[in-house]
């Protein structure tokens, strides 16, 4: 099964409410995915800085990690702790050195995402508990994507939880299962991409990252995925300024959307949209099979 929620705000005044709105949506999808939950949230950022979201191993002191990275880079590091995750902000010019440090310290930290505005938080557990632990409700931002997981293709682990991120400020959540992910993964590995898990959804994320790296737009990348990815899927994808939805040609996995002057919203079921403000005034529709829906901020 799995549940997906997504929210792309058009009305700036709602930005302080983004996290609260999305966590309400996420919790309605608990029955579809009680194993794990996660959220990618696009919030504040500075163009010359980059945010590394890391999962901190049990027993490691996040404050010590901040000091260690600052000492390695010999420059100050911004740090913000949310439960088991820490967001370290470094100068863009020092990103490669910081990522090298992350690799060296893989006993203490796991890289979850890299982004100028995006942060990803995911954990094993009931969505309500995960949302509470990370404090999603207090987070601000422009758009966000969330997922509740019922595992089919790989183990119930934090690394197997969604969203997956394979490129800066890029995330993907998936409901369904791919049948040719091993072949696609091998192709992408030959192209120089690396994968952190055996998960099929990570391959879909990697495929889109690879397409966009070669100049395709979000819309074009998703359109070509209809030819190259085989299986059942509803994808919701986020980029720094974009939000997109795609269902496979059979449309096995459920999807419902709402659009108003204030927002574009996605839910696996209407229940997820029913908690949004002024939903009665939004246009509610079911996305067509094999059709890319994309919204981008200028």
């Amino acid at each position, binding site marked *: 099964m799995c549940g997906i929620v997504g929210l792309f705000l058009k009305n700036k005044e709602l930005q302080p409410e983004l996290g609260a709105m999305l966590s309400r949506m996420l919790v309605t999808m608990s029955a579809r995915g009680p194993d794990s939950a996660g959220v990618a949230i696009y919030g504040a950022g500075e163009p010359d800085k980059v945010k590394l979201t890391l999962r901190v191993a049990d027993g490691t002191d996040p404050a010590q990690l901040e000091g260690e990275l600052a000492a390695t880079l010999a420059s100050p590091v911004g740090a913000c702790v949310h439960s088991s995750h820490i967001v370290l902000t470094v100068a863009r010019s020092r990103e490669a050195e910081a990522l090298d440090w992350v690799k060296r310290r893989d006993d203490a930290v796991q890289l979850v995402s890299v982004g100028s505005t995006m942060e990803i938080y995911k954990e094993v557990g009931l969505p309500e508990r995960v949302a509470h632990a990370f404090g999603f409700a207090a987070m601000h931002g422009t758009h966000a994507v969330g997922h509740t997981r019922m595992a089919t293709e790989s183990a119930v682990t934090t690394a197997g939880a969604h969203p997956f991120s394979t490129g800066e400020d890029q995330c993907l959540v998936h409901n369904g299962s791919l049948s040719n992910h091993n072949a696609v993964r091998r192709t992408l590995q030959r192209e120089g991409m690396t994968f952190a898990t055996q998960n099929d959804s990570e391959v879909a994320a990697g495929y889109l990252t690879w397409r966009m790296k070669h100049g395709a737009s979000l819309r074009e990348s998703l359109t070509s995925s209809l030819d190259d990815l085989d299986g059942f899927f509803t994808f919701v994808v986020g980029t720094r300024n974009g939000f997109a939805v795609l269902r496979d040609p059979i449309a096995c996995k459920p999807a*419902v959307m709402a659009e108003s002057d204030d927002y574009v919203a996605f839910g696996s079921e*209407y229940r997820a949209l029913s908690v949004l403000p002024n939903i009665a005034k939004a246009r509610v529709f079911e996305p067509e099979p094999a059709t890319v829906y994309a919204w981008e901020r200028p």
Partner: protein
Amino acid sequence: MPTHDLNVTAVRAVNDALHKLPPDTNETLWQIDNPEGRHAIGVGIDAPVDVEINGHVGYYCGGMNKQASIRIHGNAGTGVAENMMSGLVHVMGDASQSAGATGCGGLLVIDGDAAARCGISMKGIDILVKGSIGAMSAFMAQAGSLVVLGNAGDALGDSIYEASIFVRGHVKSLGADCIEKPMTSEDRDRLADVLRRGGIDGEAKVEDFRMYGSARQLYHFHVDNIESY
């Protein structure tokens, strides 16, 4: 008039109350408020009552219905009126996929569009869609009529048995073994009957529809295919 607010009363409790109605009940008008996309509302009713549902519903609303008239003042999720036996389910908005799936009788009316697989494996239900229907509709349909005022998506009537499909608009493509057929006077009467029961006999003319059904090549034994057995 029994009125239930689903933000206060659980769906299961409301369904229980509906299931306990005796055949000669005097509580014939039920109102259900704040459905908010909940699943399985009004499933398994077997009493001649009217149920008004004020809002959007989730999966399987009105499933297995016998006798009741259920009106949904909103959209319906997957499998509305699935396996309906008799009575009426009326969706005043759009319906998601598999509307009227495996229905054996009664009438399903959808004022808006229906998504993929509308009337999949229908077994005698009549379905009237005032908008358009999605891909793979009437897949393996066995009996009953699917009447569509708008257009039909890909692979209409794939592997169809003996149901009839009437479409007023454009059909994107026909599925395996589904062909257009000439309408007999009996077919015209059946179509007119569905339009009349759906309350639109004045608005839609029988002669504007084209009829599709089974070529009967797929489900009969054919000696040329002996190698396949």
